[in-house]
């Protein structure tokens, strides 16, 4: 039982890492990774949003969509509830963490369109997770995302300091690095199933 939960976490963070093996959430990965500070903020924000999104989408699915037999509305409903929640988080952050809100700039609302969020919600349904599993799955997905994001940000800060050929500076070399990182994560293939 406990082992199952542990497995969900480890498998989701590493073997089935959202960014590097499922290729979800690449947009914020490239967008918010030029600085350690903002990457840290984004990682935390995503963790918050993803956990909340998993729970709320689970509740929405179990207690609204299923009873009413409108499961076909899952995607729409999830988007709906995720958008609302991100908006709320942003407002709260603007009020209580204005600096972080500024730092994240456009990227906080961007979590809304982060496919990882919708991905978590839909995968939860597909894998038939219960409430706790959903929450854990959402959290672990975000943790994996955040870990990669921060590693990537640290690496990009380092890339800024190196003599990358002119044509490859900025986004190109970042993408090359991301692909090499993904290659490393392919070594986890076959694990976590």
């Amino acid at each position, binding site marked *: 039982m406990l082992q199952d939960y542990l497995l969900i976490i480890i498998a989701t963070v590493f073997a089935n890492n959202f960014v590097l093996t499922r290729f979800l959430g690449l947009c914020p990965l490239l967008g*918010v990774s*030029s*600085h350690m500070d*903002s990457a840290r903020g984004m990682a935390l924000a995503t963790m918050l949003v993803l956990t909340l999104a998993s729970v709320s989408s689970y509740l929405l699915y179990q207690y*609204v969509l299923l009873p*009413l037999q*409108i499961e*076909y*509305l899952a995607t*729409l*409903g999830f988007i*709906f509830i995720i958008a*609302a929640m991100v*908006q*709320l988080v942003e*407002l*709260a952050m*603007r*009020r*209580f963490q*204005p*600096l972080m809100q*500024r*730092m*994240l*700039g456009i*990227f906080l609302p961007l979590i809304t369109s982060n496919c990882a969020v919708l991905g978590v919600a839909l995968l939860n349904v597909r894998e038939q997770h219960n409430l706790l599993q959903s929450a854990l799955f959402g959290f672990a997905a975000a943790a994996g995302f955040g870990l990669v994001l921060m590693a990537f940000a640290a690496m990009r800060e380092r890339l800024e300091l190196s003599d990358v050929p002119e044509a490859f500076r*900025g986004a190109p070399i970042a993408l090359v690095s991301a692909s090499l990182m993904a290659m490393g994560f392919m070594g986890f293939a076959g694990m976590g199933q």
Partner: protein
Amino acid sequence: MTQLWPTLIILGPAGLLIGIGLSIAARRWQDHSDTMIERINKLLPQTQCEQCGHPGCRPYARAIARGEADINRCPPGGDTTIRALADLLGKQVKALDSSCGEHKAPLLAVIDEQRCIGCTLCIQACPVDAIAGAAKWMHTVIAAECTGCELCLPPCPVDCIDLVSLADQPQRRIPAHVQIPDLAA
């Protein structure tokens, strides 16, 4: 078609409810972006030269904070300032907008006291009150306060103000093989 109704019935009110909730929250937790203007202003060189097209550094900072002005319009700050602003705002670093002017080493205005006729026009133009003098009396620049903004040049009717480079005495000479971007200027 029959599936449309439950959709509307459920999602419609839900959307309304959420919308109301969000608007209340937005009202409650208002935007505090003044701190942002301060942070941007802190990064600007404070020459008050108006080359960016704004009357001083703070107005430019406000314009940046509101997204009305780009970050590459400050010639005195040069690349350093652009980089700092890009860092703060999470934007891409870009080249200085050459329509605003060229980056120069820090300058200091000096009044040729032989030629000065005491017209006070430069005193009125100086954004930091760094020129001392009175009508019909010779003026002089307070070196420690001058920002080298060049705003005093155009109004002077006798062209008696010169700009000299403001060189700090170095502690050490820097060897030729040390390649640092900031030294290139």
